[in-house]
């Protein structure tokens, strides 16, 4: 029988003894090698965490495999990170290398610490969602393969946090990522009068459109769209199945860069669009992986040590970002939504 409202399992029962003993007593950490964190407590205890990349969409075999490794090396304790990596928690330093060897043998990459590329926060895509403009897991796999060297090393100028969202709902919260890949629709929803008539509350549907593009069509018990006003956000589709927005020929991805979340040094910032559209070319989305690699490499070549994407771009200026990356600038990249005014250059100073 089910127990209602029991809440999540108690974390206290699942943290390893070394953490219980040193809870809140950590005084510093080091990164002895990529993927390994060593935390030192004021008690003198040392905790080793080995961070492992995960595809996130995993089978039970994968989970059990993790359990086996945890049992063998960490008394059964492990955790996941806020970016969906796995962390094995070891109190015994001597087990670190054997664990890494076992992981490597199983093809599980160790890395994601310090100045590296961590796992890509992403979403469902064609695996499970009803509104995607692109797949999630597929592109993530293609990009992580391509940039693999930066996961297991710490040779980037700074952390690189990539996010992917398969539609503008942005479940991957890509809006504040160093680099974001966002699924975008590009065509006006096709209205299915029948579906709308069946189950949709017309006033809510009309109200759902941020640009006021939707008009009631009382005759059909449905709606019409003023094509010119539609910017394909898909919000109407979320409200009603009759607003069919997926379009195999025209859906694809936009690339945004320069977002950041931490407050360290500069304040958090939004990611900003630099490429409005790249086609969906499964299985490996070569246009996307190329664009991502190119941007990352230009950043590596030009950023100062410690400079995240946003800091680098804000220092050199967006004008020069476009020059250095050779990405064509177009009016599509200029904001025309509510807060556009703040993005216009209200100053006679700029670079070429």
């Amino acid at each position, binding site marked *: 029988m089910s127990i209602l*409202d029991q*809440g999540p399992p108690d974390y206290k029962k699942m943290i390893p003894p070394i953490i219980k003993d040193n809870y809140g007593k950590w005084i510093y950490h080091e990164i002895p090698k990529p993927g390994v964190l060593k935390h030192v407590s004021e008690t003198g205890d040392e905790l080793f965490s080995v961070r492992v990349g995960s595809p996130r969409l995993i089978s039970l075999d994968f989970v059990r495999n993790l359990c086996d490794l*945890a049992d063998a090396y960490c008394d059964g304790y492990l955790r996941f990170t806020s970016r969906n990596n796995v962390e094995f928690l070891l109190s015994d330093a001597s087990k670190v290398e054997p664990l890494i060897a076992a992981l490597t043998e199983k093809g599980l990459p160790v890395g994601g610490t310090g100045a590296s590329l961590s796992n890509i926060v992403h979403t469902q895509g*064609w695996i499970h969602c009803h509104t995607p403009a692109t797949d999630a897991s597929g592109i993530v796999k293609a990009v992580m393969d391509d940039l693999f060297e930066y996961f297991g090393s710490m040779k980037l100028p700074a952390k690189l946090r990539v996010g992917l969202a398969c539609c503008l709902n942005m479940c991957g919260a890509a*809006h504040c990522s160093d680099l974001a890949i966002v699924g975008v629709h590009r065509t006006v929803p096709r209205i299915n009068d029948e579906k709308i008539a069946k189950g949709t509350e017309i006033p809510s549907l009309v109200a759902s459109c941020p640009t006021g593009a939707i008009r009631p069509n009382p005759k059909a018990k449905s709606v019409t769209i003023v094509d010119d006003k539609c910017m394909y956000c898909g919000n109407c589709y979320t409200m009603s199945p009759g607003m069919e927005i*997926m379009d195999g020929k025209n859906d694809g991805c936009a690339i945004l860069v320069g977002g950041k979340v931490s407050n360290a040094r500069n304040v958090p910032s939004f990611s900003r669009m630099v490429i409005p559209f790249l086609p969906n070319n499964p299985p490996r989305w070569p246009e996307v992986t190329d664009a991502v690699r190119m941007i990352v490499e230009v950043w590596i070549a030009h950023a100062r040590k410690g400079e995240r994407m946003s800091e680098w771009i804000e220092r050199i200026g967006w004008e020069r970002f476009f020059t250095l990356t050779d990405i064509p600038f177009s009016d599509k990249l200029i904001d025309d*939504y509510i807060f556009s005014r703040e993005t216009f250059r209200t100053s006679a100073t700029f670079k070429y």
Partner: protein
Amino acid sequence: MTEKKTPQLDELEKGQWPSFVTEIKKAAATNAASEDLLHLLERSYEDRIGHWKHGGIVGVRGYGGGVIGRYTDLPEEYPNLAEFHTIRLAQPAGWFYDSKALRSICDIWEKHGSGLTNFHGSTGDIIMLGTTTDHIQPAFDEFSEAGFDLGGSGSDLRSPSCCVGPARCEYACYDTLEACHNITNEYQDEIHRPMWPYKFKIKFSGCANDCTASIARSDCSVIGTWRDTIQIDQDAVKQYAADGLDIQDRVCDKCPTRCLKFNSETKELTVIGEDCTRCMHCINYMPKAIRAGKVKGATILFGGKSTIVQSAFMSWVIVPFMKMESEDDFAEFKDLMGRVWEWWDENGKTRERIGETIYRLGMGKFLRECELPPVPQMVFRPRANPYVFWPQDEIIK
């Protein structure tokens, strides 16, 4: 079925990053739904569109959220995906597990689901990916037995999450795990029974590094901070200098307020306490030498959300400093939360996140009606327009 080929997906088994295709195939070996999923995905790769129907409401007894209904639009061809719902399980604070708990999840999902899962979903839940309507309740019953409960979905409180905090991080300014666990438990009703204008997310980060991305990804961000001044251990500073760290360049010059002075002769580092904005940079660089102040707590920010509809918002400061140590402090937080939710519930339109409601109605109204004292910390800068709404009682009649 076994005849069908997946040439495109097979390509994604190559390369060094672990492959989700391999994972689906592993599940497909013993599960027909997962096998169908593999082929449906290949089909999507051909068609370049998703093959899932819009929405669908399913659930468990006594709850209003926690399960996402999903049906393929090609049920004839992929009969095992005619129903393929997702169950969201609330994760333990900090995503800590022992293998026993994980194995119990596996055993249940082997019986009731596709054998596929996401550790974890973007909000933080464990995502049990793919089951049929019939199996939802039995699966939930067993998860429940094993100590797991559902997370949120729909217009409710979503599963709060927190960074690893004091469990493994020297920077934590409050106990993120305890706060998250305590507060999550308080709000089980709000999580399980949607009743608000829209979804609401809370994330707890132990310091301004914000390792849960709370400022971007939650309606309420609880970010650890301190009220006094950073503590500097001069011996440790000297050690860093001796070890070759260019303190002037890497630390002082990158301090956003330039309030750190390094004396290259005495090798001492001093701070102008009143100028420091507690950004964490110097502490990140020299954790052995610089620590947070002693009066620790959290900044409470509201309004974060992503792009749809009014644009993405980041959370903004509402309470600059709140103690977060004891049950009493949590009570203060909950008291605030109660006032804020009540206000939003009363004023928010359907599908309007709290940030959008505040933006639409104005911070002034929000603050007054939630009895929050306005302070300059709430804004980067004051208003540029002179459009002040004037309270009637300050007007001369």
